[in-house]
Structure formats: C-alpha cells, structure tokens
C-alpha cells in the first residue's frame, strides 16, 4: 500500500513532498549581502521543468481526447478522492461500469509511460514531478 502523506513532518522524511519544500529552500529564506550566495547551476532548469504549458496544441488534443472519454451521463464525480471502487458503484448501469474500468486502465498505462519517461531523466539533481502526474498521484493515494 502506497500512501502519499498529506503532511510531511519537519524532519523532511517522505520524498513525495520533497520538491515542495526544496523550492522554498532555494527561493525563500534570509539573504544576507555580507555572505556570498554560491552560484547554483541547475536551478533554472528546475524552474523551467515544472512549467506546464496549458495553451499548447498537445494539451488541446489531450483535453479533447479526455472529454470524448468522459461519460457525461454519469455526472460529475462527487468524490474523486474516494477509492475507484466507490466511484464505480455510483455510476449507473453496467455500461458505465465497464466503460469506467476500461478508460481507467488506459489512463493508468499512459500515465505509467509518462512517469517512466520523466523519471528516466532524473539524476541526482532535485527535480519536481511534472503536474501531468496529478491523477497518478491520486491513484497512489487510493491504493
């Protein structure tokens, strides 16, 4: 069972919130002009990586595809934070059920692929997880 902690302790334990904390370490905090700030190569990359370009053709097509998959009749999911199984129970009819399961599986695969790609490039440097992984993080919480 994987649990993404909603709250990391001050001890900096879990790695899930690592980036959230590191950006503050890098970007906030006291700066004293009598001290030198070490030149930190790599930080610009860290900032650019995390940008999500909403207004791009790729995003448009991804959204369009996702909307085609959405089952309008099922209505907005009341509680996306709840386990998948609960979501399925609230869907009406066998059609909704099987459809949900199918698209769910497709999503999982494509997300695993995306994640694999993004983690592949991760070396020793601190790197944020791209926001695209939002729903896969959610899935981790559910399992």
């Amino acid at each position: 069972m994987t649990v993404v902690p909603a709250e990391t302790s001050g001890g900096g334990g879990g790695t899930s919130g690592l980036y959230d904390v590191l950006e503050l370490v890098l970007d906030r905090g006291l700066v004293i002009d009598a001290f030198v700030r070490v030149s930190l190569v790599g930080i610009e990359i860290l900032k650019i990586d995390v940008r999500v370009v909403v207004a791009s053709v790729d995003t448009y097509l991804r959204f369009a595809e996702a909307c085609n998959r959405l089952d309008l009749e099922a209505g907005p999911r009341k509680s996306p934070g709840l386990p998948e199984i609960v979501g399925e129970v609230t869907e009406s009819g066998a059609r909704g059920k099987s459809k949900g399961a199918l698209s769910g599986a497709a999503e999982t695969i494509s997300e695993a692929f995306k994640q694999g790609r993004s983690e592949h490039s991760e070396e020793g440097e601190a790197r944020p997880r791209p926001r695209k992984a939002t729903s896969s993080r959610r899935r981790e919480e559910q399992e």
Partner: protein
Amino acid sequence: MSTYVYGIMAASHPSPPEGMAGVGDPPRPVRVLKAGELAAVVSDAPEELRPKRRDLLAHQNVLSEAGAAGCVLPMRFGSVAPDDATVTGVLTERAEHYTERLRALDGKVEYNIKAGHVEEAVLHRVMSENPDIRAQAEANRRAGGGSYDDRLRLGEMVAGAVKAREAEDGAAVVRALTPEAAAVSAGPESTGWLVNASFLVDREAAARFLDAAEQVRRDMPHLELRVNGPLPPYSFVEPGPSEPAASTAGADVGTG
C-alpha cells in the same frame, strides 16, 4: 575556510545535536557560532557546493532539527561567509533586526499549500458548466472523435475553461485558509500549480489550520491539495515590500 550558514537563532536556543550532518560529501558537521544574544547554525562550506538533492535536504534537515526547539530564521540555500568572524560580525552588527524578526516569528511555523486539479474531475466540471463545450464534445463523439480541427477547437475551449477554473479555485483555496494564518505569502513563481502559497501559522493553531485544509479537500474534491509543514518560516523572514504578500497570494494562477 569559508563558512556555510543555515540559520540564525537566539543564543539561548538549544544547539542542534552534536555533529549533526550538514551539507557536503562527506557531510560537514554542524556547529553553532554565538555573538551576544544571537547565534548562527553553521558548518564548514564544501569546496564545490551545488544544488544537489542531498545538500538541499541537509540544509532543510538542519533547519528542521534546530527549528523544533524554537524559532530559527532560515537562510536561503547556498549562503556562504568567508569565515566564522564574518558571521559573528553580521550577528553583532544587525542584532536588533534579527532579534526583532525572531520575536515576530516566535512560535510560528510555515505551511506551504499547493493545489492542482484532478484532471478527470475538472474536465467533468467544466463540461457540466459549459453547454458550448458539451455540444462540441457531443458533436466530436458522434463523428468518431471529430476531425483534427474539431478536436483542436474542443481542446482549446476546454483549456480556456480549465484556466478560468484554476484562477477561481486558487483564489478560493487562499480565501479559505487565510483566516487561520497570521500571514500569507505567494509561493515561488512558475511552479505550475493553480495555487502555491505559504501560510504563517501559530504552532498552537496548527491543528485548526490543518482542519481548514481538510475542509477545503472536502469542499473541492476536484482539487488535489498538498500540505507541507510545519516548515521553518522561509517565506516570512524578510518583511520586505512584497511581504506579507497576502495581496498577491493566489495570483500565481495559470501558468502563462
């Protein structure tokens, strides 16, 4: 030998554990330099300091450890003084300022809040709210997905609606949590979240703040909310013109 500085605290503040691991490989042991009423948590500075995950974590861990015993003004990562004497010199010279900051932040911790949309849930939401999007999606679906231009048109409409929701939801999150905080500061920019804000919270009131965050989770199930804390008050050490940034918090919406 240059000196790496982690943070500033009161001289009466309990020292971090003897030989605690600081930045560098091998980790340089952490020590405390005192000057009058103030003290600095320092270690020797490694020759070539880079923003390695390990070093960033060491910086954060030293501050967390020291901060558990009371207020520490956290330095930004990578602050290096030529020597110990420069550090104690700065403490002496600006004692009044740092003492004031320590007093102002005493008993307070930072919580950083980030939120993103749960994609499927937010798409559902914008579709249910917007008849035009619904009509276009339905038309595309009937046409077996629609032409490239159709899909692009739908996607653009959806992206616009999602962006608008990002702005609204980001502001709503900040609005919901601000009453439980002593101050609010917009998080570092260009991080791609619909909201990235830090809240200065009284240690005693932390439970109430976390309850409020839980309430946001319940009220806005289409958001994924990340709560990080308690942290050293990174975003509140300098009372510069941009802080407290209550007015700009939540402005870090969208990504453009």
